[in-house]
C-alpha cells in the first residue's frame, strides 16, 4: 500500500469510527466489508458516504457509492473523485 493509500485508509477509518461508534484504535483494511462492522447497514451507509465526502472534500458519484463491496473499493472511489491529496 502506498503512502497516499495508507493516508486514505487512516482517514476512512476515522470516519468509520465516528459513524459506527468503533473503538478509538480501530483501523479498517481494504478487505473490510459491512458484514464486519456492527451497525453498517444500508441505512447507515449513506451517513458513512456523507462523512467521507466531508473528510476528503469531494463529492462521490452516488450511484457507485451504493454498489461498493468493501473499503478498498471505497478508497478507489475517493481517489477517482480527487480525494486523498489534501490534509485532514
Amino acid at each position, binding site marked *: 500500500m502506498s503512502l497516499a493509500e495508507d493516508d486514505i485508509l487512516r482517514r476512512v477509518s476515522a470516519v468509520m469510527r465516528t459513524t459506527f461508534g468503533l473503538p478509538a484504535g480501530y483501523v479498517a483494511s481494504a478487505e473490510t466489508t459491512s458484514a464486519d462492522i456492527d451497525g453498517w447497514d444500508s441505512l447507515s451507509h449513506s451517513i458513512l458516504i*456523507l462523512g467521507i465526502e466531508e473528510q476528503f472534500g469531494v463529492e462521490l458519484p452516488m450511484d457507485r457509492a*451504493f454498489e461498493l463491496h468493501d473499503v478498498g473499493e471505497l478508497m478507489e472511489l475517493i481517489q477517482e473523485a480527487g480525494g486523498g491529496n489534501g490534509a485532514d
Partner: protein
Amino acid sequence: METAPTDSPRGEKPTLLVYGNCQAGAVSAILGADRALAAAYAIHYLPSFDDRVSGSRNVAPEVIARTALLLEQFDANPFPYRNQLPLHCANIVFPSVDLNLLWPLRFANPYNDQPTEATPWGHYPEGDRVIIDCVQRGLSADETIVYYRTHAHEHLPNLSRYAEMEKTRLRTRETRCDITMSDFIFSSLSSDRLFWSANHPTTVSLRELCERLLAAAAPAVPESRLVDIDRSLTMFAPEGPLGFLSVPIHPLIVEHFDLRWYGSGEGRDYGLRVEPASYDEYFHGMASIAIQRRASLEALRTAT
C-alpha cells in the same frame, strides 16, 4: 405471468408467502386480515431475520411446495427455499420501505437495555449518535439533554445532499425489484407521515405498498383485485402494525423538509410510556437507560 391454481390436489389452500423483515410481517398480517384473500390462500410470513416477535424462520416443506405467490422483499439474506417452490409460483420482489433521511443521527445503540418479553428489542433499539457520545463522555441525563438541545444540529449532515443520497440509495435498490416505492415516498414526505422510525413505515406507507403488491400480483392471483386494504387496516391499532416505536425528528429537519404533519409530542419508545413523549423526554429516557447500561457493563468488565 401464469395464473396459479386455487387448490392443491388434496384440497389444501395454496400458499401466499411473504418473505422479508418486519415490514413483510406487517404486509402478511394486513393481507391475512382480508376475508376473501384468507379464504382462498394460506397466508404465511417468513422472517428474513431473527424475529423475536413473529417467530420461526422455518416453514414446512409442504407449505412451501404449495406456494402460488411469493412476495419477496429484496434482502441481503435471499429467500432460502427457492429450489422448493413449485414451477407455477409467481414471484414479486419488493423493496424495504425505509428512509434514514429524517433521522441522520440514528446509531446502533450499544447501551440499549436487555430484551424482555414485553420489550423484545429493548426500549431504545434506535440509538442516537449524539446521545451515545454524551453518555460515553460521562454526562448525566440532564446534562445530555442540555447539550443535545444546543449542539445536536452541529452534527447534522448537509440535508439537501443527504436527500439526494437517500433517493439514490432507494432507486439503486429498486432496480432489483418488481415494484417501486421511492417515487411515493419522496412525493408524499412533506404532506403525510410515512415513517415512525427509519425502517418502520406507518399505515400510509404500508397501505401504498400493499396496493402496489396486489396490483402486481393480480395476473397470478385474481383475488387480489378484491382485497379491501382499508378494511383490513381497521383490524390494527390506529398507529398500525409497526407503530410501537416513534422516534422524534430534529426541528431543523422538520423545517428543512417542510414536514407539515409533524407535532411536538412525537416520541414513543418501546413500552416505557403509553402517551407520546416530548422530544426532550424521549432522549432523556434514552440517556438514562444508556447511563445505567454502560455502568452495568463497566462493572461487569471490572469484575471479570
